[in-house]
């Protein structure tokens, strides 16, 4: 990471990349971008480039891992070696293992897993280029891929982070804001139910600041939710 900028938020509240505190980076979602996968989606959020694929419901081996009353959800978050400044060695590290676990738990509340007993639903997220906020972007993309695969869902899951930067609560921190900010609050939710399915925070915030960040992230999720549905409509029409 280059030198720390002198200030991340201008006096008038404008951010380094010209955004307002509650503004998302440019977002683009496309459903159904792969041939082999049962469902897929491509997402760009700022410089993040993310592709998600879903395989399933499909047979699960070995048999003793099958659940008689529901599908087993598996999630793999992976960064391409060239996706970050310093080449990332291929293979899972502790960070990506944690993200994979939390992302699975963020999507599972939205899935009717009981409709698919004894099967596996595999979700794969590949980060082709990373610029802060990849775990949320991955969940957002995966949710569209799940819908594209025809998996029955209670709701789409939308995700985005809020952050505290130079004392301000801002939506969707980019690279510098994440690196030099005071706190990061990734959040995923089912917008229809206003229910949080992923929530993390690290940094330093008063309880009120944290609540404010959660509110702002939820607001961001609703914008993302609209884009998710648009992407699906572009492919499937309807509504």
């Amino acid at each position: 990471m280059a030198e720390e900028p002198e200030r991340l938020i201008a006096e008038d509240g404008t951010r380094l990349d010209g955004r307002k505190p509650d503004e998302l980076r440019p977002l683009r979602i496309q459903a159904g971008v792969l041939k082999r996968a049962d469902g897929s989606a491509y997402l760009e959020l700022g410089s993040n480039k993310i592709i998600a694929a879903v395989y399933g419901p499909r047979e699960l081996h070995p048999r003793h891992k099958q659940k008689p009353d529901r599908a087993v959800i598996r999630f793999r978050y992976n960064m391409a070696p060239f996706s970050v400044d310093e080449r990332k060695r291929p293979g899972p590290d502790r960070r990506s293992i944690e993200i994979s676990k939390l992302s699975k738990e963020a999507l599972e509340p939205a899935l009717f897993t009981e409709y698919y007993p004894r099967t596996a639903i595999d979700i794969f997220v590949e980060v082709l280029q990373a610029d802060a906020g990849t775990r949320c972007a991955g969940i957002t993309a995966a949710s569209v891929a799940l819908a594209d695969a025809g998996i029955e869902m209670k709701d789409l899951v939308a995700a985005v982070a809020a952050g505290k930067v130079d004392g301000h609560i801002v939506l969707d921190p980019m690279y510098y804001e994440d690196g030099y900010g005071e706190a990061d609050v990734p959040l995923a939710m089912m917008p229809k139910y206003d229910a949080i399915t992923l929530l993390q925070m690290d940094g330093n915030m008063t309880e009120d600041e944290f609540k404010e960040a959660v509110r702002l992230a939820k607001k961001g999720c609703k914008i993302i939710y609209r884009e998710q549905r648009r992407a699906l409509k572009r492919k499937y029409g309807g509504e």
Partner: protein
Amino acid sequence: MSLDLDLLAKIKRHEVLSMIRTGERIDGRDFDEFRPIEVRTGVISKANGSALVRLGNTQLVVGVKLEVGTPFPDTPDQGALAVNAELVPLADPTFEPGPPDENAIELSRVVDRGIRESEAIDLEELCIVEGEHCWVVFVDIHVLDHDGNLFDASLMGSVAALATAEVPEVEVEDDEVEVIEDETRPLPFRDFPISVTVAKIEDHVLVDPCLEEEIVMDARMTVTTNERGDVCAVQKGDKGEFPPKAFEEALEMAVKKSKEIRRTVKAQIES
């Protein structure tokens, strides 16, 4: 055999759930009540700091070891922190030998963030020669008996071990670091992060879930606060969701409860 166990487990789950619906917990606690906490420091003399924690029947040892290492290139003037949790198969019939799985990794990373984000350790004080040598603080969490809420017990143990750890004095000559026998100073520990884990079971929230409660819970949220009461780490886990009301109740319960738990742990360390 496993059939009977499954049946027993189902009956137990049903019991835990029906009690909660009537406002009671399986072990008689209030929804905002922790199990008895016992923290004993200095239990491992081979470690630079250590603590044995008992939280109800949950039992674990945390050992702190200091090693001379090289600072990270982006923090040449700081020591380093490495938290590791081992869910050894002695502690639970479902734990398996092998490298840390996703549960052990999540546990260690949540504890790590609690310590790191509260800036509890003054890492700059652990630099020996800028860019060349520094102390690496290894915090190893060794779980012995798993009866639920490993998150809070692990942070308690880590904080207790760190708060009582000693750093060896060193001399640097010709770029070689020599440890001086028997001379130490306290580890520069300047905050006291405490986490409180709240379980959501149906539309109830309760702190410090025991294992039987963890099995039936929908979701959990671990909130770590520093001594000032600021939030420094949060982690929602498990496969359920937090609707607005449950989220707010959980957050408030956790922040409030953390003050009491901090006092309890501190008192035990000082005694």
